[in-house]
């Protein structure tokens, strides 16, 4: 599809905005609709869009496979890490109010890191599944 001019131009215009929108949804999840899951899915959709227009090899060069695989695992580890940090600092597992001297700010910090972990895992998994499906078809030809 990289020979089609209209698709290439539209993709080049849209993909930065989609990435920016994914970051907006992630960080404004506290104040409006949004949060980790939506942001992760939109991020994966932007990269899938890039892969559809420009080819799988160039997408693999931009987001290499080891990075995607480690993103899948690191997100869950961040989430569990926040929980363990709550344990270490004196509360129960996944207590946020011990993370900071002001309990409300501790909640903010906990929620922020938890959403980052969720978005990382979701976008990594969606992208990895897409890579697997696309890869399976290629080797047959």
């Amino acid at each position, binding site marked *: 599809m990289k020979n089609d001019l209209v698709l290439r131009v539209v993709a080049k215009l849209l993909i930065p905005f989609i990435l920016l929108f994914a970051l907006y949804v992630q960080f404004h999840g506290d*104040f*409006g*609709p949004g*949060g980790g*899951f939506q942001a992760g899915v939109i991020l994966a959709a932007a990269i899938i869009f890039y892969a559809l227009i420009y080819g799988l090899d160039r997408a693999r060069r931009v987001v290499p496979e080891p990075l995607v695989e480690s993103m899948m695992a690191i997100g869950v580890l961040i989430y569990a890490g926040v929980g363990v940090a709550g344990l270490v600092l004196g509360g129960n597992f996944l207590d946020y109010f011990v993370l900071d001297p002001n309990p409300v700010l501790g909640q903010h910090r906990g929620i922020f890191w938890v959403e980052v972990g969720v978005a990382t895992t*979701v976008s990594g*998994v969606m992208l990895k*599944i897409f890579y*697997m*499906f696309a890869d*399976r078809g290629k080797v047959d030809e």
Partner: protein
Amino acid sequence: MTGSGHFSYFVTVFLMVAGLFIVIARSNLIKKLVGLGIFQTSVYLLYIAPGKLVGGTAPILSDAFSVYSNPLPHVLILTAIVVGVATLALGLALVVRIREAYDSIEEDDILARDAAPGPIEQDP
């Protein structure tokens, strides 16, 4: 009990029955997965519709509003949607593998191939 008071439940039940029918009555595996998706969305509606209060607003706290729709079903259904897509991805991966092993994605063909023993090509 009025008809209009329970309309949301009727819609939910219609979608649920339609999804169920597609799952049990169609033999194509991909259509079955689409039917399963329709069934899942009817369950989302089943949980969210009773949470809505007429005259309320979305559950984002703000000084301008005082009546909010119930946020608890939203939380549960958010989890359910993501788990649903995870299940769908696994189901589609299974369909791809079945296609490579049995050379068909119609349920009748697959059951016939299983009943009549013969070599099934192994796949790398």
